[in-house]
């Protein structure tokens, strides 16, 4: 596998082509917009929370393959889990994207494909956009997040 395919793995390309959980939730409890001013990526996350769980989560917007795939993979993974597990996952992904010691968490499944961005510092923001939006949605009162 050459280096560029390390970044654009099949899982990433697939989730870019067919994003899961794409759309709006009409009765969402949290709506958060994430913007990456550098490349104009803009995604909106919709969450419905119930008894400390992420009952439903969707996203829409436009972005590069990395940010769309990351959003799609994230919604797949987070849907149905608890808020605290989702926040743990945020920390793991954050390390996965930025840790220089090749951090690999065990239970990430498909999300492990995101580790390809480590070689591309300019693309880390693309991969983390949705995750910052998620964290804002779960913890903050703010409704906008930006990777800058």
């Amino acid at each position, binding site marked *: 596998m050459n*280096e*560029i*395919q390390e*970044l*654009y793995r099949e899982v990433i*390309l697939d989730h870019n082509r067919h994003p899961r959980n794409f759309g709006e939730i009409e009765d969402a409890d949290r709506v958060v917009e994430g913007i990456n001013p*550098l*490349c*104009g*990526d*803009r995604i909106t996350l919709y969450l419905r929370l119930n008894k400390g769980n992420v009952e439903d989560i969707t996203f829409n917007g*436009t*972005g*590069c*393959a*990395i940010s769309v795939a990351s959003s799609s993979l994230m919604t797949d993974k987070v849907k149905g889990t608890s808020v605290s597990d989702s926040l743990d996952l945020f920390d793991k992904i954050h390390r996965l994207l930025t840790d220089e010691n090749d951090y690999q968490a065990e239970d990430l499944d498909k999300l492990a494909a995101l580790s390809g961005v480590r070689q*591309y510092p*300019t*693309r880390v923001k*693309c991969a983390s956009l949705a995750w910052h939006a998620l964290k804002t949605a779960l913890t903050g009162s703010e409704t906008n997040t930006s990777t800058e």
Partner: protein
Amino acid sequence: MNAITASQSNIKLISDVASLRADIPALHQKIWGKPLAYLDNAASSQRPQFVIDAVSNHEKRNHANIHRGVHKLSQRATNAYEGAREKVRAFINAGNSREIIFTRGTTESINLVAHSLGLSQLKSGDEVLISWMEHHSNIVPWQLICERTGANLRTIPITDRGELDLEAFNQLLSERTKIVAIVHVSNALGTINPVKEIIDKAHSKGAMVLLDGAQAVAHMRIDVQELDCDFYAFSGHKMFAPTGIGVLYGKKVLLEDMPPYQGGGEMILTVTFKKTTYNTLPYKFEAGTPHISGAIGLGAAIDYLSRIDFNAIAKHERDLLEYATSQLSDLPGSRIIGNAHKKTGVLSFILGDIHAHDIGTILDQEGVAVRTGHHCTMPIMEFFSVPATARASFAFYNNRNDVDQFIGGLRTTLEIFS
């Protein structure tokens, strides 16, 4: 100044542009194991060894503060700095070197005019006319000033080809128009605007004209007297000189009436707590210690360019643009943004639904440097309904190999996303 005399007399100018590639050290390196194809010249150009040497020579031997010391180094530095001003004057054919103000770049030049001229002369109900294809640096300063003065900002629309809608311009222009601020060459579209016509029309209504020349100076000869523009702004780093240095040209009669933009050393004659008297032009607008080595580098870049036939540069870049345009048009899903009749070597495009940022990363892997994003021209992106474009932009030192490598990288991109 030798080179200036060379271009004015009939000493033969270099027309074999391709041979000049050897002068640019940065181009001779590998990126990810591939030869570098640098196609991001509209963002910033690379420096010839000649410019690097001029700056380093100054730093090694001649550096001191200017206009202040009686000692030798200060004299050398002052002479070199003022010599650079004279080179800039000749380069754009201004009538007087007092009309050349050194700034940090195009952005600061425009802000200077917007603040100094705009705040002192614009009144509620006046109009400032810009266009849809302006760089943010020729939009935001005017928005700020219009907010403060109550003047209105009006915008000339563009056509699907990416040209100014001149009929709309004629209608928007009126006695209320005080300032017309227009990009000479669009960084996102490559469009060369008919600035002479715009200037003449604006003057007939009594409006002043500022041209944003950031994308023009490296590609065509500029004659500010022939254009009769009131202000002309450009950056050194887009014309083979260092960053942090740029120029504002302004007509002397206008600059003389304008209040200072920043206060400090260098821009004063006398200071008392009751009243300060300002220095003469151009120093009135150059508060503080300037970017001395940057100005010297800019002077060297002008010397370098003055040896080259600008018609040959234009022809070479047009050839590259046509070659790249036809190759790109053959790729499935390609759409070129900006198809003006008159263009510089700027090729903005999208490729199917592949995001520009992904194109940029894959091209980088192939050794090809392009810009991706909104190019600080969000209104243009909105007009063409695209979130971002990828942009290849040429300078005289590019060649067809660069284009081939670029197109090859796009084919790889298409394969990965197929």
